[in-house]
């Protein structure tokens, strides 16, 4: 009697234990195959002298590629640009996204349409965005110069992408435009999860709009913001498609970032050893930033 009643129970609990693993296995296997394996391969290649057009010449060089990178002027230029790139793009996107989300959270006619339209930059492919902005910035026909000239803000058309002083900033503006809807949508979702009663209670207590924002809204969306910033940080740091299409890293090295430099070294110069070393160095640097960020924000949020 006891046997009969225990077996299905036992089976059920065993099933419960195995089921998560069974369901996760395909995803883990795929991730291992398409993410971890290439990562290991990259690390392995970075320790070799491997130029793709000499496929038989795969010589172990230890850390030579890393030493060469640290002594390479272009590596440091690219690193500087990567830091500028991340430190300006993400806060700009966050700020713009926050303002947009707060606006979209207000009641106004056609709000659903506005919410749908705001997502357009995020939904467009990077290459389309890059080409579109290349035309906007064009020094002969571009609308940016035309507009500024007519407003009397500039006297001569500026070659935004061909001038090393403005190239990186111009691309940062493009990327800010592309990425802010992501923040807007995420923050909007966060805003909608804050109970209206908090605001009602606060206004009964006489809290100003600013204090309501500071003490209710911001804490309410901080978790969402943290996740969004983390995701965006990794995406922005790694993204070079827009730069590649808009300037190819030029003029000179004026818009080189580390992922772009690694890509050019590996894909155009076919120097996979050196390109991999730069990629590995960049991954390590990014990991430090991410861990630091998680520790700091983790504390702040809790």
């Amino acid at each position: 009697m006891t046997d009969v009643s225990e077996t299905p129970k036992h089976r059920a609990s065993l099933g419960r234990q195995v089921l998560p693993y069974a369901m996760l296995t395909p995803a883990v296997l795929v991730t291992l195959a398409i993410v971890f394996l290439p990562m290991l391969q990259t690390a392995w290649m970075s320790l070799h002298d491997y130029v793709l057009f000499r496929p038989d010449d795969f010589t172990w060089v230890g850390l030579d590629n890393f030493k060469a990178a640290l002594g390479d002027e272009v590596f440091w230029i690219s690193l500087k640009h990567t830091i500028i790139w991340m430190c300006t793009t993400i806060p700009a996107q966050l700020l713009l996204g926050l303002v947009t989300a707060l606006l979209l959270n207000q009641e106004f006619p056609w709000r659903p349409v506005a919410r749908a339209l705001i997502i357009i930059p995020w939904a467009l492919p990077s290459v389309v965005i890059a080409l579109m902005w290349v035309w906007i910035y064009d020094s002969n026909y571009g609308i940016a110069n035309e507009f500024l000239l007519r407003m009397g803000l500039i006297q001569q058309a500026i070659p935004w992408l061909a001038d090393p002083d403005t190239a990186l900033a111009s691309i940062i503006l493009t990327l800010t435009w592309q990425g802010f809807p992501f923040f807007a949508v995420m923050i909007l979702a966060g805003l909608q999860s804050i109970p209206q009663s908090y605001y009602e209670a606060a206004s009964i207590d006489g809290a100003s709009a600013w204090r309501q924002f500071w003490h209710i809204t911001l804490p309410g969306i901080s978790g969402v913001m943290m996740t969004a910033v983390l995701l965006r940080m990794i995406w922005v740091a790694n993204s070079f498609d827009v730069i590649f299409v808009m300037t190819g890293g030029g003029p000179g090295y004026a818009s080189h970032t580390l992922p772009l430099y690694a890509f050019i070294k590996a894909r155009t110069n076919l120097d996979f050893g050196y390109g991999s070393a730069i990629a590995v160095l960049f991954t390590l640097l990014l990991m430090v930033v991410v861990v630091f960020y998680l520790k700091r924000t983790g504390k702040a949020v809790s």
Partner: protein
Amino acid sequence: MKFKTLTGIASTLALCAGMANADSTVRFWYHFDNADNPMDALVAAFEEANPDITVEAENIPWNSYYDQLYTAVIGGNAPDAAMVKMFAQPRLVEMGALAPIDDWLAEWDGADGLQDNLIKLTRGPDGQQYYLPVQYVVLYLYYRTDMFEELGLSVPTTCEEFRETAKALTRDTDGDGQTDVYGFGFRGAKGGHDHWASFTLGAEGVSLTEGLTSEAGVAGTQFVADLFQEDGVFPPSAPNDGFQEIIGAFKAGKTAMTIHHIGSANGMVEALGDKVSAAPVPECGGGRWTAFGDESTAVLSSAEDPEAAWKWITFLSSEGNNTMFNEATGQLPVVKADSEGWTLHPQRFVQATVDSLPFAEMLPNSSATADFVNTVWPTNMQRVLTGDIEPAEMNAKIEELFAE
């Protein structure tokens, strides 16, 4: 037993049928700027003549053509045949990616019909033949005849004259205080090395492999830098300008001169009519240098059916077909018979090409050439133009690359 026999016969029949249909497929990669290219017509004509061969022709964007080709070769997914330029040959040979065509070439009766010397010019670095020429061009100077006439200028024949002419042509035509016509459309992005080379490599004793850091060599790069920084005769966007930009600006009347080949002649005539003409590039530093723009086809060593791939590429370099091919690219046919009846381009552009042939040269047959074209030249030229480095530093970097 009966069943077994029947099955055997059926299998044999099926196998025979399979063999009869054992078509070869030739995967062919090419790059055409022209969107409405007649490759489909060429493929159809070839397949009609060779019903057992199917050609899958794929147009790969020029900007990433070689990146994709090298990656495909290494990844084991290379096409069976491809359009290729000379600068890529040393690297492709080093990769073992090309199939030698000497034996086939010896038997092919179309070889004698090709323009003289082209086979020799395209020989591989190891003395074997891998490339079969399919079209050629020579770079020359395009200029706006109406603007020259208006200002009473004549076509510059030396760099000094070129500088003065370019300065005169750079002007504000509508009186709004903005320069709206620039003397010369300089290509500062990838592919612009031919412009720079015409101003630099003409000097005696200066080539990409020697004399580049000599006084004469540096003077050439300095000349280009001065044209941009001091004289302002290039549009401000010159450091980033590529093919589309220089051709677009010339057609739109934003520039009065530029350097390119006959491939853009018809487009220019369509936009500007008689207001555009061509002449050889000016003599700089005592000599002239212009680029011989080659294009060949090759059979890849990994081709599944090399014979079929060879058949296809010889088809493209045969009388009649070569005309059709060049009608798409707007370049010049390599087949003598096709050249004789050539009417696709106005005579003045063909003449400028022929006049430029005596001093046209190719880039060094070295595996460094690909890096020179793709990264070293554009990056350093842009740095010189934007004042980031001195011309001598740029020349030293190029010399270093070829010395490695």
